[in-house]
């Protein structure tokens, strides 16, 4: 009495779906990227492969959505209760049941097969092109059992990506084994085009996630682990992204960007970056040495401790000022004064913030926290990881308290 099950409107639905999908896909690949499909543009092969995989699933998804949705709407309209309508009491149909289970499975098999085909392009970096930067063999920051995928010729520009609250630090591998003299930068990574760049992604405090949408997927920076990815950008430009894993209050502002320039420009940038880092380090070292010399002289001129005339110094066993100026070389506590200017102590170094101005009005607890955990709160205009983070262990509790008291008194008055 009603149309038999086989003459479904599903055929129309499917046809409609295909037409609609193709209508949608054409613009989607171009100007509408971002509305219906991930952003594209860097030209790196892995991102392109991921995108085409996405578009395939998107197409199939549209067909299923409009097909099933159409069938649903048609059913609801066609079989709404009306006068004289009688519900047909069927309990099921095994052939249909098997049919759609197999149908769904086939769709998924199709997606799996295409995924496996694309996997090579997604996972394995190609060699850098001839017009890329010629990179040395093997220089890399790899650790742990997992190894980065390297191009067939083993050559890539390897960059260590270190996520920290709320900043990305990039350290460029070089050929020597000393990792302390490497070129580094923050926030913006500069890379040469047409060159395979491999990233070793780590985190030093909480979990972060490295993500530049146009350069492919995201890779979590998990403390204690190293994660790897790569890209090979063909289009010069700046590609923006940001941390994608909740990492605290500054998560939203933990941005990252990759600037792709020609290999020649890259070499220039690299050289100038190296020069300025070396210069800054030299400056800090001279300041440090000068301070140590001055401090040594001061110690020599000071009345000797066992001179009877000297003030009885019971509690003054620990002298905050002395620690500030000279540090505690025995335990590896660098002198604060080698980096910070403080009028009371007569230091003028500018590696770190001027403490007379920045500590004005701050509580002792705050000063203590900044000293113990310098990387938790980065002062504006300064980078993390310069101030040593070892004062919790290199100073005793009494020394620390004395130092903090000294600073507080010196800046905020007694």
């Amino acid at each position, binding site marked *: 009495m*009603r149309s038999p099950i086989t003459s479904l409107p599903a055929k129309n639905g499917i046809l409609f779906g295909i037409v609609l999908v193709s209508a949608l896909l054409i613009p989607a690949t171009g100007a509408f990227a*971002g*509305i*219906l499909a*991930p*952003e594209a543009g860097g030209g790196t092969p892995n991102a392109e492969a*991921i*995108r085409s*995989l996405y578009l395939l*699933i998107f197409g199939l998804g549209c067909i299923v*959505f409009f097909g*099933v*949705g159409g069938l*649903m709407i048609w*059913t*609801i309209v066609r*079989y709404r*209760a*009306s006068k004289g309508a*009688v*519900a047909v*009491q*069927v*309990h*099921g*149909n095994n052939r249909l*049941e098997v049919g*759609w*289970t197999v149908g*769904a499975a086939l769709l*998924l098999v199709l*997606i799996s097969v295409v*995924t496996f085909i694309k*996997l090579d392009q*997604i*996972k394995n970096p190609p060699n850098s092109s001839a017009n890329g930067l010629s990179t040395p063999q093997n220089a890399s920051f790899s650790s742990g059992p997992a190894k980065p995928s390297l191009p067939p010729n083993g050559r890539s520009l390897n960059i260590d990506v270190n996520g920290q*609250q709320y900043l990305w630090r990039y350290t460029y591998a070089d050929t020597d084994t000393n990792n302390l003299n490497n070129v580094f930068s923050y926030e913006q990574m500069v890379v040469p085009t047409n060159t395979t760049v491999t990233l070793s992604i780590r985190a030093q*405090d*909480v*979990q972060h996630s490295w*993500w530049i*949408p146009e350069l492919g*997927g*995201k*890779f*979590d920076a*998990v*403390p*204690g682990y190293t*994660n790897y990815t790569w890209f090979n950008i063909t289009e010069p430009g700046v590609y*923006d*992204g940001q*941390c*994608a*894993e*909740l990492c*605290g209050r*500054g*998560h939203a*502002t933990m941005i990252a960007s990759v600037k792709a320039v020609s290999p020649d420009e890259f070499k220039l940038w690299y050289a100038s970056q190296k020069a300025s880092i070396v210069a800054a380090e030299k400056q800090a070292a001279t300041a440090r040495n000068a301070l140590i010399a001055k401090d040594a002289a001061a110690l020599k001129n000071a009345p000797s401790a066992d001179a009877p005339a000297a003030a009885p110094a019971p509690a003054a066993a620990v002298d905050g000022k002395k620690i500030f100026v000279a540090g505690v070389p025995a335990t590896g506590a660098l002198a604060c004064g080698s980096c910070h200017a403080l009028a009371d102590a007569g230091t003028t170094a500018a590696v770190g913030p001027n403490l007379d101005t920045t500590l004005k009005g701050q509580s002792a607890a705050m000063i203590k926290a900044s000293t113990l955990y310098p990387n938790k709160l980065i002062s504006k205009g300064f980078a993390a990881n310069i101030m040593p983070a070892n004062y919790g262990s290199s100073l005793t509790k009494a020394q620390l308290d004395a130092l903090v008291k000294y600073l507080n008194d010196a800046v905020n008055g007694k």
Partner: protein
Amino acid sequence: MTTTSAAASTTAIPEVVTNSAAPRPSGWLSWLTSTDHKRIGIMYIVASWMFLVIGGVEALLIRLQLAVPDNTLLSPQTYNALFTMHGTTMVFLFLMPMIAGIANYTVPLMIGARDMAFPKLNALSLWLFIAGGIVFYGSLLFSPAECGWTCYAPLSETAFSPSNGVDSWIFLVHLVGVSSFVGALNIFVTITNMRAPGMSWGRVPLFVWTMLTQAILLIISIPVIAGAVTLLLTDRHFGTHFYDPTNGGSPLLWQHLFWFFGHPEVYILVLPGFGVISEILPVFSRKPIFGYKAIVAATLGIAVIGTLVWAHHMFTVPLPFFLMIFFMLGTYLVAIPTGVKIFNWVFTMWRGAIEFPVAMLYALGFLATFLLGGITGIFLATFPVDWQLHDTYFVVAHFHYTIVGGAVFSMMAGLYYWFPKMTGRMMNEKLGRVSFALTLGGFWITFLIQHSAGLSGMPRRVYEYADVNNLGTYNMISTVGSFILALGVLLTIINILQSLKNGAKAGPDPWRGNTLEWFTPSPPPVNNFDIVPRVRSVEPMQDIRRQIERQDRVGEEAGVAAGS
């Protein structure tokens, strides 16, 4: 008729005789001390809706902050606390107790039992859940957790989250965890032991099947999350380092444990929804469910495979490739039984005579919404594509489509469907329709566009964003939608309150239902059933109605014969 039956029974039948029925206790104290599954169910529902309002207000604040780029309405601290509370509230304090409430009320009635197997444990479950809510919201007085509902370590360790907010989150998980665990045992024992005579496994209503499966999933997964948060607690306060990488611990341990619970949890939330839909669609299509056995098999299949796919939430952490492939294929596998159920539901309506009360409208809203949520799930299961979409607004959109589409809409359908049974009164259909239209429309406006926000590079859990790639427009649309959605929910709340007083009297079986709860008066007496009928099919009420018709016909004929 009467004379013949009286003549037939000559021997005394043993029966319980009471001279006076104890009046039904009333007053608030009788509610607080009640062990009646119906009252406990209603208290569950009422409490969960209070938390829905709180969680909803949190959601609106989140949307307000995101309405325009670079907004400074809320501080990052407040914002992070808000989404942590929103997620935690909606999962643990709204949906799970809402489902528990509906199940508490209906499962014993549907299987013809007089109460749950362990009425006192049942009350314990309720009060543990409420205690959990209070402990969690107590943290508003100092500083609430800011680590998201997933509370990843090491961000949730004391070094990075020194405030006690995380601790109150941990205690919430403990309390509602024990509550759900005990509740699951209760449901399991009730269903396996207390079914009406004749209700063999092939005749158990589908909602009851899904609750049984949900109970099993809870029993498997709750101990794992309870253990995980206990380790976090000892890390935070007793010097252990389970999740601390600087001392040999592993942040991935947390993620594995959390998602071993977290993935089954999504089935814990949606399977009962599937059950509700499988009850409502046949009733209003006036047809039996299409493929009863297939749906039961799919439900059990989902439970088995669903416990083995958790790491699809971890495709972006360092995992070996073969594991990613394993979890991708496993997720596809579990998508099949989930996906094909949609066909079962559509074919249940096929060639029916469909009526559209509000309960049915919500069921249809469920179908459409869950369909899209299921499809976007395939994107996320394909791990290279997930690398692009993970932790963006695409994922936020996906899980709202599945959780709100799958669990909330179906529970709304259930609420409109069973409200007459619980209160004896009908809800206002007209207001219900308006509410439904706003809820469904508002939902789609809010969340459809969020896919695009994610594809345009917006990560989740950011309190502000720059106005690039049209993000400002997308988010404004989403914010407008969220207020429409909220208005829809508000209208349902008003509807409930009004109908409690003024709703039309429902009678025992206003929908011509299929299952046993419609056999007893609305609201049912304390003991539910004076006589429990023998069950002969999945649709005992159909049988009973047919039998009565037959008897009437016989009676009429007899009457006609006698009269002539």
